[in-house]
Every structure is written in C-alpha cells, then in structure tokens.
C-alpha cells in the first residue's frame, strides 16, 4: 500500500453513466490485475474504491459508473486535478494458474478489471476468451479494446439489442482451462454454478478503509473470515461460501 498524489490526464464518458479516467503518478505499488485504488474526494469523508482497468508507463486507467455521490463528483473532475490515491490495494488475480485457454467473464461495471488481466494473460502467450455481459447495447463499453488485443470477444445483452441475447453465462464456450470473473453478485453466482473448471471471482462490498484495518467489508468463506479489501477482492472458487 502506498499513498500517492496522481494527476488526472483525461476524464470522459464512455456511456451515459460510465466514465473513463486516466491518471498519471507512481503506480509501482500495483502488482497484479484485479487490485484497486482508493480515492480521496474533496467534500467526502470516506475514500472510494475503484478497480484498476489498465496500467502502462505510469498511466493508470479507471473505468467507473456513476452510482452515488462519490462517483458523481469524480465524473465532474477535469484534467490537471490532483487526487490522493492509496494504491496497491487488494489481492488481485493470479495469472499463473490459468492454463493456456483462460475464459474471462465480466458483467457491466465488473468488466474493467478484466482488461488489464486480459492484457497480462495475452502477454504470457495465452489464448484468452472474454465474455462481456451488459443489459443493453447503449451500456456497452470496452468491446473494441478487448478485440484490439486480438482476443476472442463475445458480447451478451440481456435485451438482445446487441450480439447474443441473454446473460454472459448463456454463451459459455465449450473449451476453456480456467475462469476469471467480475460483476454483480447474481452473475458471479451463476458463473460459479455453471463453469466446469476452477476460477477466481472478484467481489464488491461497501468498504471503510480499503486496506484491511476496519473489518467493514468482511465475508465468510470456506477457509474462514476474509476481508474483501485485503484478502479479496479476488477469491478462489474453492473458498467461496454463498450466503442467502
């Protein structure tokens, strides 16, 4: 974990409610895809955790959906604005166990962390497949960027307005060696029950600190209590315990 000042380079909408923010600063503490940063926003007390979408040459890309006060404030920020970030937070995706044909499944605003992951897996010479699930065509983002990495990109829209009609889990390919996923909990649950391999799942929870101190985001797992912010957000399929 490191506390660093970043500068916003770009901040623009990708859809009606989803924005892409590019920041420059010291990213040395970010060690794996699936980690997140925790942003201090003027006028708000708690920091806001946002997953890392991409990382290259000191530039950090965040893609976030406006869902409340914090993200609304973020959407109004202009290039040149300085932001205080805690970086290197969370236990990210482990690419070493992926096999040669990993499947990535993202739902809505759960898609962004899979981009950096896909790039890493691709760099490791693996044949990556990604499924992107959205409600409707107008909410779609990152499809082109995934395709530009040269990986097989499948889109599912719940209303059928673009490509396959249905959920991400309705269009699973026949062959894959491992699954990495991030998205709303109902999707994660569906993925959990439908996939034939092991996998890693990224969870979301309201956090206090984001670095393991306050126990605000704890969950129960097969292997004991885990903090989503510190022991997660990525949990292995074998340790997930669904509570209804």
């Amino acid at each position, binding site marked *: *974990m*490191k*506390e660093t000042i970043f500068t916003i380079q770009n901040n623009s909408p990708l859809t009606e409610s989803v924005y892409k923010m590019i920041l420059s600063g010291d990213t040395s503490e970010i060690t794996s895809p699936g980690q997140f940063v925790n942003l*201090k926003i003027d006028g*708000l*007390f*708690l*920091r806001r955790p946002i997953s890392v979408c991409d990382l290259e040459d000191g530039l950090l890309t965040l893609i976030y959906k406006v869902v409340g*006060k*914090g993200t609304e404030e973020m959407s109004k920020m202009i290039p040149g604005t300085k932001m205080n970030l*805690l970086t290197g937070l969370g236990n990210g995706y482990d690419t070493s166990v992926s096999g040669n044909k990993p499947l990535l499944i993202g739902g809505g605003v759960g898609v962004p962390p899979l981009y950096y992951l896909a790039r890493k897996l691709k760099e490791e010479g693996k044949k990556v497949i990604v499924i992107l699930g959205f409600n409707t065509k107008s909410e779609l983002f990152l499809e082109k960027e995934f395709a530009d990495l040269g990986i097989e990109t499948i889109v599912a829209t719940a209303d059928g307005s673009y490509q396959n009609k249905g959920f991400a889990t309705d269009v699973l390919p026949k062959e894959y060696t491992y699954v990495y996923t991030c998205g709303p909990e109902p999707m994660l649950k569906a993925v959990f029950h439908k996939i034939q391999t092991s996998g890693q799942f990224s969870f979301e*929870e*309201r*956090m*206090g*600190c984001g*670095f*393991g*101190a*306050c*126990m*605000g*985001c*704890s*969950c*129960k797992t097969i292997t004991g*209590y885990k903090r989503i912010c*510190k022991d997660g957000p990525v949990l292995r399929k074998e340790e997930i315990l669904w509570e209804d």
Partner: protein
Amino acid sequence: MGRLSVNLCGIEIDNPVIPASGTFGYGYEFAEIYDINCLGTFSFKGTTKEPRFGNATPRIAETASGMLNAVGLQNPGVEKVIREELPKLKNVFHKPVMANVSGFSVEEYVYTSKLLDAEEQVGWIELNISCPNVHGGGMSFGTDPTEAAKVTKAVKAEVKKPLIVKLSPNVTDIVSIAKAVEAEGADGVSLINTLMGMRFNLKTRKPIIANVTGGLSGPAIFPVALRMVYQVAQAVKVPVIGMGGISSAEDVLEMMMAGATAVEIGAANLVNPAICRDIINELPEVMDKYGYEFR
C-alpha cells in the same frame, strides 16, 4: 522524557497520540506505511472471549463529515489473539500496547481482561462498555452507572495493569458514568465511543447498514466529544483519554486544553492511514504556535 511525553496511568508514553481500537487492527497494515513505533501506544481491535464474525454487511456508510459503522466486534477471540496476533504484533510494535476488551456478561469481561492482563506486551486494559453495535452486551453496560460500576469493580479485582474504561456518549449524563467507574477503581476513562445513528438508502427505502443502526464517528462528532471530555475531566481525578473525530494536531491541542491526558484517533486512520504519524510530527510546531505545553 521528551517534550511530547505524557504519563498515562503510571506509564510514561512518548506522546499522547493513540490510534483507537477498531480502526487500527493489530497495526500490521499501518506498519506497511510507516514505523508505528512513533506512536505513544495503540489500542488493538476489541477482543471478546469467543471468536466473533460480527454483523452482516453493509457495515459502513458515509455521512456528512464522518461515517457510520456497525462491524459488531469481529475478532478471533482472546485465545487466538494471544496465540497468533500478539506475537505478530510484537514484530511491528515494541512498546506496551493497549488491550481493548468487550463482552456480553461481567464474567466474559473478567475472563478476557484477566488473560490479556497477563501478557507482557499489554500495558493497559481498555474496557469497552460502549460498543453500540452488539446486542445484549457492550453498550448496555455503559449506559447505566450501576452496571458500569459492577463490571469495572469485577475486572479491577482481577487485573494488575491500569484499567481504562471506555465510555459511551449515548447517555443522558456521561459524568455520572465516569464517576461511577472511577469510584470502583478505574485508573482512567476514555471517551467518546461512537454516537448511535442511521442512514437510509433512498432507492431501497431501507437502512444502508444491515444492522439498521451504526456508530457515528469522524469530524462530525468532534465538538460533542470535546464537550464530554471537558465535563468528565472536571469531575474525575483519573486521567481522561479524549477521542471522537480528531483529525489534526490542532484538534489534539483542543482535547488537551479540555482536560485530556492523551487522545485516541479513530476514523481518521481509515481515510489517511499515516495521520497519526503526521499529527505527532506536527505537534511541536502547533504547540509552539500557541505556546502550549502538555505539562
């Protein structure tokens, strides 16, 4: 004895800055950011006899200038704390530490306090009779002078280390509780724990916090905390640890001027993890500016 040092219930500490229980874990996460040995001491995560998962999530909500939490005393239980956490803590913090104890009966408070009291690393027992987020324990002891006195007396009889009782602000008269625990042998009091509050989610029309209510902390509560510290410090002879919304060296000075011997810093750690170090570094300059000394 440095300029910042203070005497907390018979133990000299290098400065009066103490991270508050529940906002600092066992120190490990903060030790990644700075050498936590610069702290006066710290109060580690509230410990109970049995392991506890705590409340359902969400446990956290934003508020104006603060936050609500309803963690519900998640901890691995006193045996595991002694077996696993204290040896690890020893690697990152080499001073006496404050053991925060909670319970659901007088017997549990005594049991847990006694075990922690026997640990060499523990300098003080902080008896948490003011957690608003558990049911049938915690705060129910801290909102009634008779109950507060009873648990203080029982624990005091069994521990050798200084006993500090952490008080709840969710009472009509905090002074009467402070006097009651002092009369039964408390060596100090710490205040205030969080103020009970709630937030609703406008979309779901339901409370944000799964526990319905949570404890309010952060700068929003500082003036309330300061007022209570002032009132209690006038009424008791034992040292008072002031806490509640402190987030700057200036806030520390206000608390000291109100009668505190030391301060605890809570919610601010969660937002600015190096805040306690920064405050310690800034204290001499701010003390110079206002010509104020702790002794």
